[in-house]
């Protein structure tokens, strides 16, 4: 006899969403989560927020490089460029 898995509640659903969005959730958990999402608008909102956050992260440039840090690195470049090619 097939054992039926217990349904997902919201508190559990949100823990599955990162893997779900990456396609790394098991088929069984994918099915359980999708069954829950079909009947739970707040969890669909949460999923949309997670999807948006991941998407926006791809547009984030990590940190603005300070002018001082850039100057230091340009100095590294110039020293390297002006090194005699001994190696």
């Amino acid at each position, binding site marked *: 006899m097939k054992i039926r898995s217990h349904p997902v509640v919201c508190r559990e659903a949100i823990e599955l969403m990162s893997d779900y969005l*990456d396609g790394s959730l098991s088929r069984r958990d994918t099915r359980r989560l999708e069954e829950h999402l079909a009947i739970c608008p707040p969890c669909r909102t949460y999923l*949309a927020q997670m999807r*948006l956050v991941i998407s926006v992260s791809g547009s984030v440039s*990590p940190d603005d*490089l300070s002018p001082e840090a850039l100057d230091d690195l340009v100095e590294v470049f110039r020293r390297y460029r002006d090194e005699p090619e001994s190696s």
Partner: protein
Amino acid sequence: MNDLELVDRLLEGDERAFTDLVTRYHGTLVRVARYYVRTPASAEDVAQETWLAVLRSLSSFEQRSSFKTWLLRILVNRARSSGTREFRTVPVDPTSGSAVAASRFDEGGFWCEPPVPFTDSVDDRLVNEPLVHLVREAIAQLPEPQQAVITLRDVEGLSTSEVADLLELSDANVRVILHRARSRVRADVEARREGRSV
């Protein structure tokens, strides 16, 4: 201009190509270096050493991997071998660190304080500067392992297995850390939009 075009120009000694690559990747290098070293200053040092190593070995870059992956590999190798390193083991307890405060659920585990849609979430995320700013701020507040993982996976777009390989973590651990990082970023953005402290 893409990375490989910049690499070609850099091989010809073009300073502008170097500054473009630095502007593109230095922040990521520092953030990933922080996974290995104790202080922000040490992370800056490791990142700077990495750029010098890149300049010295660029002619041997064979383009079998992307420039980004090659660069990150150099960084990780340097960070690991750095005298300042405090090699971290990342304890991952899958049962700890809930994505949302327990008080937002009722006894049955259903929402009693449900999330509110990010209403000004426009379709074109590139022009949604306020949200980009909030996400950047939120990522910067994460603990170092979460910052490293989310930066490599979601900001730089590496695959889970590439992140695991670089940081010497299992795929499962990367997924757990990534889940926590994304959850905290979402919660942080939600709180800031509602004017609450996190």
